[in-house]
């Protein structure tokens, strides 16, 4: 694969402009992504700063919420709409509450063996302080029973991270690799923010727990920034079990919404698991 100088320049430019909306993450949380057997699969979706556990922003009703699954080896993936399972909740912050979403996907919807690419396409969020809209296309992959499916497929999202490792099967210390795509085209030399979900979710009270898993030695260890290479690829070693979020900011093709700048971002959440002792 070869890139023109203009492509590289575009990537660098996008990387620079992405600074404006940095550290925003749609957290799409489910307790376990590698399921031995089919079960109900609960999701919680909160628009926040993942490492810091806040500030948390309002998440309007998503435009789309669905999964993509391959019905059989060699066949094309199908989409299954999950909007009917969305339930609005109020997420507690230090001094107020904001809208967030939960969805308990029943076992009957995710019963078959294989991969489920669960996707949230949000309504753009107006970040008034920065004078722009943010739309983060967010993916989480769940596997039932170990039969692989479409985990490596791209879904044609405007902004998307293509996984080069199964996101649900990574030991702590594993290298996770991906490709940042803008409308399906790799984006070279663009920034990818990497954040650890550092505050456990209190799902009963709809809030992040105040106590963090770790205390970083320096702010740069919170919202870490890496760059894609000339092929749009990135890699990252996950040093701790839990959830790692990868966000490529301002990579989507649409740059305006309601007459204001729009940042179309790609988010992929990856679960790291400790090697058994």
């Amino acid at each position, binding site marked *: 694969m070869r890139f023109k100088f203009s492509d590289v320049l575009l990537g660098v430019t996008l990387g620079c402009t992405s600074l404006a909306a940095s550290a925003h993450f749609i957290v799409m949380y489910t307790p376990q992504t590698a399921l031995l*057997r*089919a079960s109900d699969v609960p999701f919680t979706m909160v628009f926040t700063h993942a490492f810091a556990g806040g500030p948390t922003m309002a998440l309007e009703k998503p435009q789309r919420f669905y999964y993509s699954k391959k*019905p*059989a*080896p*060699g*066949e094309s993936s199908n989409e299954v709409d999950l909007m009917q399972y969305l339930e609005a909740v109020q997420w507690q912050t230090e001094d107020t509450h904001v809208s967030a979403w939960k969805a308990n996907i029943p076992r009957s919807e995710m*019963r*078959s*063996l*294989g991969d489920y690419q669960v996707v949230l396409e949000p309504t753009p969020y107006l970040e008034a302080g920065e004078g722009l809209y943010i739309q983060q296309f967010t993916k989480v992959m769940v596997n039932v*029973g*170990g*039969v*692989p*499916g479409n985990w490596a497929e791209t879904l044609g999202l405007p902004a998307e991270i293509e996984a080069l490792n199964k996101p649900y099967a990574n030991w702590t210390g594993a290298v996770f690799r991906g490709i940042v795509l803008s409308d399906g085209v790799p984006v070279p030399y663009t920034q990818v923010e990497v954040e650890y979900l550092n505050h456990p979710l209190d799902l009963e009270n709809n809030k992040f727990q105040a106590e963090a898993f770790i205390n970083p030695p320096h702010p740069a260890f919170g919202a870490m920034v890496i760059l894609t290479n000339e092929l749009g690829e990135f890699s990252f070693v996950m040093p701790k079990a839990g959830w790692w979020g990868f966000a490529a900011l301002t990579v989507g093709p649409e740059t305006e919404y309601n007459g204001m700048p729009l940042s179309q971002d790609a988010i992929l959440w990856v679960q790291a698991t400790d090697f058994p002792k």
Partner: protein
Amino acid sequence: MSLFYTTAVLLVSTLLYSLPAAAHTPLFDCFDNGDGTITCEGGFSDGASATGVVIRIMDSQGKVMEQGELDAAGSITMKKPTAEFSVTFTAGTEHSITVLGDDII
């Protein structure tokens, strides 16, 4: 002719060698449809198709009560026995998995 023969032997050897070297693990589970039937699904850890794999429902004595083959989607639906039973996925002698009827929900 000699080159052709050598190439052919190499190709066949490679194919034969690649079969046992495929490190796939059989995977299998069954679900109770709640209508007197169960659906069983099978596959392999490397994504290989399980189409045609024989599925057998057996009673507590090991007697085959019903059998069929997984379809293109790796799935089969069969009548759920009323007595104690188990379901076995058999893909060659090395690849066999049994799910007990009581574990099918």
